[in-house]
């Protein structure tokens, strides 16, 4: 018989709601709450929930280290073959607790683990790359739908059976790439997909596009002749020699350079660090990426108030969106502190 230990929170254990979220970890023999339904499905495959650990969601999240140790001890005593946490649906603290304890059990006891929650549960983003998380609906209304999916995956994991794709097995994509030989070659698959798309038929993408958020446009500059304009670029313009070693791809940082008194970028003084385009033209004249010469003329002509003395640069080539976001936040802080009015960002 394959032994299972189940983890649930105070609510699903019938102990109480929010007022009991500080419930300290407790272990009970056999099943509690949703474990009953789950057990019914598991027993058919010679698996059984031998114990259930219950813990309050607030207690767990506020005492992360102690809770993990206490609970691990409880789980260990049963020498389980597999550990299941949840389902947490859309309950954030519960989802994070499930993810954390499942990861802990997996690492310390070296047994297969799984959990289950709604795709928007914060536990997903934190733990999906470490764990199999069965996708559930967003509330306990989805219990009847979730339990069979959890049981199916549990059986496969416990018995070491081969898993299909996340879509087939019902778990949330972990972001792990697995190579395989496709039956048809890429060009055919691409054309087939395009034809479906043109016909307005349904098609399944092989690569999901990331979803980009939107920002409300800032109101326009009122008096440009008094404005302090700052230059920012993703084109990789740097002082010659790239002494800060900004990477030519997947940049880990941005540079901040002083152009006080610099009227023109020349081949002797500036270059590009960017590895994603032919640098020949930019290296001859970096104004082609960062138009310092023009803005200096406009300064002289009174078309703008001034060109900000620092420019900010990074390399956009293969740079992670998350990194770029961080750079943007840091740069924005400095620009605001320096009284910049508006920004021109150039990209190649």
């Amino acid at each position, binding site marked *: 018989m394959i032994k299972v230990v189940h983890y649930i929170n105070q609510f699903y254990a019938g102990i109480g709601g929010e007022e009991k979220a500080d419930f300290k970890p407790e272990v009970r023999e056999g099943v509690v709450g949703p474990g009953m339904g789950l057990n019914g499905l598991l027993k058919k495959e010679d698996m059984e929930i031998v114990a259930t650990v219950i813990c309050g969601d607030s207690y767990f999240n506020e005492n992360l280290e102690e809770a993990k140790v206490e609970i691990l001890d409880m789980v260990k005593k049963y020498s389980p073959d597999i550990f299941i946490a949840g389902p947490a649906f859309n309950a954030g603290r519960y989802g994070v607790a499930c993810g954390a304890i499942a990861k802990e059990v997996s690492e310390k006891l070296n047994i297969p683990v799984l959990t289950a929650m709604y795709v928007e549960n914060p536990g997903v983003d934190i733990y999906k790359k470490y764990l199999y998380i069965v996708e559930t609906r967003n509330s306990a209304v989805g219990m009847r739908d979730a339990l069979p999916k959890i049981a199916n995956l549990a059986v496969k994991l416990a018995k070491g059976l081969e898993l299909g794709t996340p879509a087939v097995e019902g778990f949330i994509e972990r972001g792990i790439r697995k190579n395989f030989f496709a039956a048809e070659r890429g060009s055919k698959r691409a054309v087939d997909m395009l034809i479906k798309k043109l016909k307005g038929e349904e098609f399944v993408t092989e690569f999901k596009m990331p979803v*980009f*958020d*939107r*920002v409300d*446009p*800032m*109101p*326009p*500059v009122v008096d*440009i002749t008094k*404005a302090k*304009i700052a230059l*920012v670029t*993703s*084109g990789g313009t740097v002082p010659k020699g790239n002494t800060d070693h900004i990477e030519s791809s997947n940049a880990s940082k941005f540079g901040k350079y002083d152009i006080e008194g610099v009227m023109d970028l020349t081949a002797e003084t500036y270059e590009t660090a960017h590895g994603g*385009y*032919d*640098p*020949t*033209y*930019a290296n*001859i*004249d970096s*104004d*082609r*990426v*960062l*138009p310092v*010469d*023009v*803005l200096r*003329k*406009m300064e002289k002509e009174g*078309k*703008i108030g001034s060109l900000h003395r620092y420019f900010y640069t*990074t390399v956009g080539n293969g740079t992670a969106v998350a990194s*770029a*976001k961080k*750079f*943007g*936040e840091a*740069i*924005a*802080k400095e*620009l*605001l502190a320096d009284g*910049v*009015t*508006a*920004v*021109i*960002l*150039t*990209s*190649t």
Partner: protein
Amino acid sequence: MLKEIERAGLPIVHMCTIVPISLTVGANRIVPTIAIPHPLGNPALDAKDEFELRYHLVEKALKALQTPVDTQTVFDK
């Protein structure tokens, strides 16, 4: 990067060559530029004409910064 700067409260214009990328990612003010290896230049022109070209593009960018927009707008005229 651009969106974070705008989110922090600074009007910003994106001078870029691949406009569809800028639109997808979400810039609000966009000025199309010449080419990937020289967005604000054209090596085929002589220095004086190239400077004029660059000046004209930056003028468009300044115009974009002074134009109220409700949605993403490409300033290509």
